[in-house]
């Protein structure tokens, strides 16, 4: 196991570095769409970077991730090469899925990114299966399944949580509660006060925890505990990471349902800005060093875009290949 056990300034810097990487790709992609250079359905993870970065910091390469259409941050944090993502967004054969999946259906086995689903709530049952396989094989892997607050109102959430608890599966249910289920507020769609308290319904095998997902220390510690618990065979955790989506549901969503003051306040608390202060105050990196990291990631993104644009589209015969295995 190579992931760090305890929170430290080095861990904080790692988390922040990953968050910066995510933001650079996220901003870069949005820029390409805005300028008309890329056309795709984009569900920005803006503002949720710290959660993913902490998750990535607590996992091994061999661990499994199941995420959702708003999954760019999770995929990067799990270690997916940016080039593979950007080329897939461009529909090129060099993309993670040869251009056949697109932004909502990213898979990259090498990084453990097993499934990205475009259907709210559908990843959780699949994650239980990955966990079940690990349990059967005794391969010591942990599966993390990411989803939003809205997904906890889908039946599949209940079925998967119950199964994971009954079978004591090594799965972490990471709910990124960004306050909006697509375009509907948390309060209008969710009856319980927190997501974490829903864990109570699944007995002692399931633990429910709620943390400020935008705070690296709380988030890292909660994630560390949940991952360790799963790996030790002690059962699943429902980890609610509270955050705020600094964006509409999709890129281009004017989001009239988010009050202006709420959005302004959220932007004032942008974790990328807030955590930057924490990093500098910790003494682990200077402002100049952080700026250099940002510049580096921006450069890497530009290179990824060039790589994508210089890559061919898939052969037209690909339209029917991969439908079935070779008989």
């Amino acid at each position, binding site marked *: 196991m190579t992931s760090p056990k305890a929170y430290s300034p080095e861990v904080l810097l790692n988390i922040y570095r990953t968050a910066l990487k995510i933001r650079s790709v996220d901003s870069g992609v949005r820029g390409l769409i805005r300028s008309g250079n890329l056309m795709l359905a984009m569900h920005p993870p803006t503002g949720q970077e710290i959660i993913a970065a902490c998750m990535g910091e607590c996992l091994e390469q061999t661990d*499994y991730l*199941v995420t959702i259409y708003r999954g760019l941050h999770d995929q990067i944090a799990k270690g997916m090469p940016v080039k593979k993502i950007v080329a897939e967004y461009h529909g090129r054969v060099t*993309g*993670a*899925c*040869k*251009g*056949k*999946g*697109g932004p909502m*259906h990213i*898979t*990259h*086995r090498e990084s453990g990114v*097993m*499934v990205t*689903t*475009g*259907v709210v709530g*559908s990843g*959780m*049952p*699949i*994650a*239980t*299966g*990955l*966990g*079940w*396989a*690990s349990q*059967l*094989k005794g391969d010591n*892997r942990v*599966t993390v399944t990411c989803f939003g607050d809205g997904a906890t109102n889908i*039946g*599949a959430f209940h*079925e*998967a949580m*119950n*199964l994971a608890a*009954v*079978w004591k599966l090594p799965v972490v249910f990471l709910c990124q509660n960004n306050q909006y289920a697509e375009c509907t507020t948390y309060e209008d769609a969710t009856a319980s006060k927190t997501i974490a308290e829903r864990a109570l319904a699944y007995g002692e095998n399931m633990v429910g925890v709620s943390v400020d997902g935008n705070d690296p220390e709380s988030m890292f510690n909660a994630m560390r505990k949940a991952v360790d618990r799963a790996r030790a065979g002690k059962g699943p955790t429902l980890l609610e990471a509270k955050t705020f989506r600094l964006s509409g549901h999709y890129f281009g969503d004017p989001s009239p349902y988010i009050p202006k003051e709420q959005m302004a306040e959220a932007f004032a608390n942008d974790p990328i800005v807030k955590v930057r202060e924490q990093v500098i105050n910790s003494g682990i990196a200077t402002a100049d060093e952080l700026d250099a990291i940002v510049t580096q990631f921006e450069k890497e993104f530009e290179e990824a875009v060039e790589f994508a644009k210089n890559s061919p589209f898939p052969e037209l015969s690909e339209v029917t*290949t*991969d*439908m*079935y*295995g070779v*008989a």
Partner: protein
Amino acid sequence: MSDPKMITFTQAYTQALDEAMAADPTVVLLGEDIGDKEGGGVFKVTAGLTQKYGAERVRTTPISEQAIIGAAIGASLAGMRPVAEIMFMNFITVAMDQVVNHAAKLRFMSGGQTPVPITIRTRTGAGTGNGGQHSDMLEAWFAHVPGMKVVIPSSPADAVGLLRACIEDDDPCLFIEDGVTRIVKGEAPPANHKIPLGKAHVEREGSDVTVISYGRPMQDIRKIAAALAEEGISVEVIDLRTISPLDTDTIVNSVKKTGRAVVAHEAVRSFGVGAEVVARIQEFAFDSLKSPVLRVASKDATVPFARTLELEFLYKGSDIEAAIRKTLEEK
């Protein structure tokens, strides 16, 4: 020579699962009530397997169809070959998202990285008074989803061979078991009997008319073809075995020879497998046709409860015979 060993369809399913589990440690079963503790499944197909292979590999689940199919998919991505039991076919509708959006598509959407080698066994069929929500033949729904394979056996020996093939196949397979004929017996196949998927079976050669079917109606058709032979009518009988991918060549070659065809299935008439088979015949064998291709199917209705109505709903053997005779009428 001694009489061949006879087994029921149910015994055939059990034999296939038993052999598959013995041959491959990654084969695991999951479903509602399937463990020995729960009685080995409502239809007893998995009875005895817990004792033989352990509760780890024969996993009773909560009543959670989405979790059952989802868990099967997830485990398959991690190298297992799960066989999920969905007690009645109508209950798969609860898990359509997992089947249609995930099992069928993950191989393609990942550019080939994540095949989904799962088998979903399910039971259905009208005729036992189970009414509208436990009797539907929904094979066409799944055949309409590229990426899925849909398989229906018509004899115990085929049941063994086809189920083994489904479990060994690298794609998601839906294996449909008929509830009415489950205690019907047929000759037992030899050990490790496997039948290739995607290949129809010309069960009886003939020259006047081709009858194409699968599953339960095959039992009617065997008798009808034998009786008509005595009248001098030569019926070629094709058992599709695999609904999807459909073996177009075998169908088309036969119809080119006979010039006449009848398609029969238990499922309701409209928008079904019959329509697809007829379409392929007219696309690829139109010039050989001597009469219109006819369909025999159950009525476009909800499966009713009352015995009289249920029989009225179902296709009838006599409909198949009448259709065959009609294709032979002089114009």
